[in-house]
């Protein structure tokens, strides 16, 4: 049991002040904008909850939100199982372990716009490796600047390339923490490899997979730079995810009121889904 000690507040004070400066002041600015109409020249008019109502009823927002959920759902459905499969197949000891870990972590250390630019170069129809393979070797008509399907396939592939390693590393950390005795006991009992996975490995990975899914949900829901650099939201609006739409409204059209209202709705959705998921996944632990 932890000791109760109110002076511990002094330890967290620097963090509190720093994060408050960075989070509360901008958040208040956003709240302030969200209830006003602006016409430039620093002229602001009270708008009340009007923007929220308009955003929540706007088709453009619904479409962007739908695309966002589709994107996040797809990448979670691919990255989580794939990451677990790769982690299960990885060597547990020997010189290949650090080699695997380092090469797998590499994509995550590349600046996000470089990731977008890299995939852009990779997917160019006639002079990129992927585009060339698709069009001239496999004979599939592939051009992500024209076909929405190709654009979607490319951003999904890019995200799988970029972030599956996060799931792999987390699942791997869970797997290596299982003592050998568990496997020996399973072997004596004659357990099948499915049973070993279901009753030994999966429970042990549950906590780290919770972290993985949470992080992937939050980050993919907030994704901006990579798809922006890769497709610019196009063709048409087909890959305009929430953040891209938000920046378009805020900085492109300078509609601060609607952009701010949208920000708050957006943030609330992220917060709610993360909280819901976290509560559901950790419910068993508390009992």
């Amino acid at each position, binding site marked *: 049991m932890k*000791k109760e000690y*109110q002076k*511990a*507040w002094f*330890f967290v004070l*620097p*963090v509190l002040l*720093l*994060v408050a400066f*960075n*989070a509360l*002041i*901008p*958040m208040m600015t*956003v709240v302030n904008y969200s209830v006003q109409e602006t016409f430039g020249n620093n002229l602001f008019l009270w708008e009340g909850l009007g923007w929220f109502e308009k955003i929540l009823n706007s088709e453009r927002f619904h479409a962007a939100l739908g695309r966002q959920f589709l994107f996040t759902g797809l990448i979670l459905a691919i990255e989580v199982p794939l990451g677990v499969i*790769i982690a299960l*197949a990885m060597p547990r000891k020997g010189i290949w372990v*650090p080699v*695997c870990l*380092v*090469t797998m*972590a590499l994509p*995550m*250390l*590349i*600046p*996000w716009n*470089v990731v977008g*630019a890299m*995939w852009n*170069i*990779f997917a160019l129809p*006639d*002079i990129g*490796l*992927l585009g060339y393979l698709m069009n*001239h070797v496999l004979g599939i008509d592939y051009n992500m600047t024209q076909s929405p399907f190709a654009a979607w396939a490319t951003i999904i592939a890019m995200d799988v*390339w970029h972030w599956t*390693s996060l799931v792999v590393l*987390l699942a791997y*950390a*869970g797997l*290596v*923490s299982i003592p050998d005795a568990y496997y020996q006991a399973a072997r004596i009992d004659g357990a099948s490899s499915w049973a070993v996975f279901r009753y030994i490995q999966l429970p042990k990975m549950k*906590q*780290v997979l919770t972290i993985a899914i949470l992080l992937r949900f939050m980050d993919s829901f*907030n994704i*901006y730079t990579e798809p922006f650099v890769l497709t610019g939201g196009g063709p048409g609006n087909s890959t305009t995810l*929430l*953040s891209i739409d*938000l*920046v378009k409204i*805020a*900085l492109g059209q300078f509609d*601060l009121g609607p952009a701010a209202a949208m*920000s708050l709705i*957006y*943030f609330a959705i*992220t917060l709610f889904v*993360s909280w819901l998921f976290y509560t559901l996944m950790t419910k068993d632990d508390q009992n």
Partner: protein
Amino acid sequence: MKKRSLIPLLYILFLMLPIYWLVAMSFKTTGEILSGFSLFPRTWTFDNYRTIFTDPTWYWGYFNSIAYVSINTVISLTVALPAAYAFSRYRFLGDKQLFFWLLTNRMAPAAVFALPFFQLYSAVGLFDTYLAVALAHTLFNVPLAVWILEGFMSGVPKELDETAYVDGYSFPRFFVKIFLPTIRSGVGVAAFFCFMFSWVELLLAKTLTAVAAKPIAATMTKTASSAGYELGLLAAAGTLTIIPGAIVIWFVRNNIAKGFALGRV
């Protein structure tokens, strides 16, 4: 056993393909890139790299990025260490709520904060300085550092603290001389993550800088649009941004898996 190792192998191959393409591009001449497909550079050229290393707008971009990333890592760790200790050792009023509130900042979309951050940092006169970007990045790095360090610290038995006090150590001396060395792999991992997320983030870094502190990645974006798409140069600049990341991963390679699990395995 053979069949099993095929899966990671194929995966690594998939990871390396786009990187290979970027590196290969960086050694090609613009003429070769635009004239058609070639798997290897037909005529090797180092012109793209030469441009980057001789043009100050390019190499200063690297210096700027490394400068604000380092400042951010130092600030984040300095404030996160005592906070993580408090969360791992004590109960205090509102501790759980505070911890969750810190995490919510990791969830806020950077796009939401771009404009208010610009106004805030302009108002306090920090616009276009390293410190502005470093401070802005603490928004998501401090919560993460607290989370990781708390995980590692909770793995250290409390008896260690108590024994040290019995032996007559004061708190600061105990923290620096005994506790920090015990969790040094955790500190390394937290530093790695601060480096990583500050290095890869661009939206806020770009919003908060104009000339003096402009990150390398922003220099690239500008080149991509203004100089008629010089793919070779872009590829060379991209290749160079991979190197610092590769170096830091190598330092934490033994703790990386545990680090991603935030010390909670």
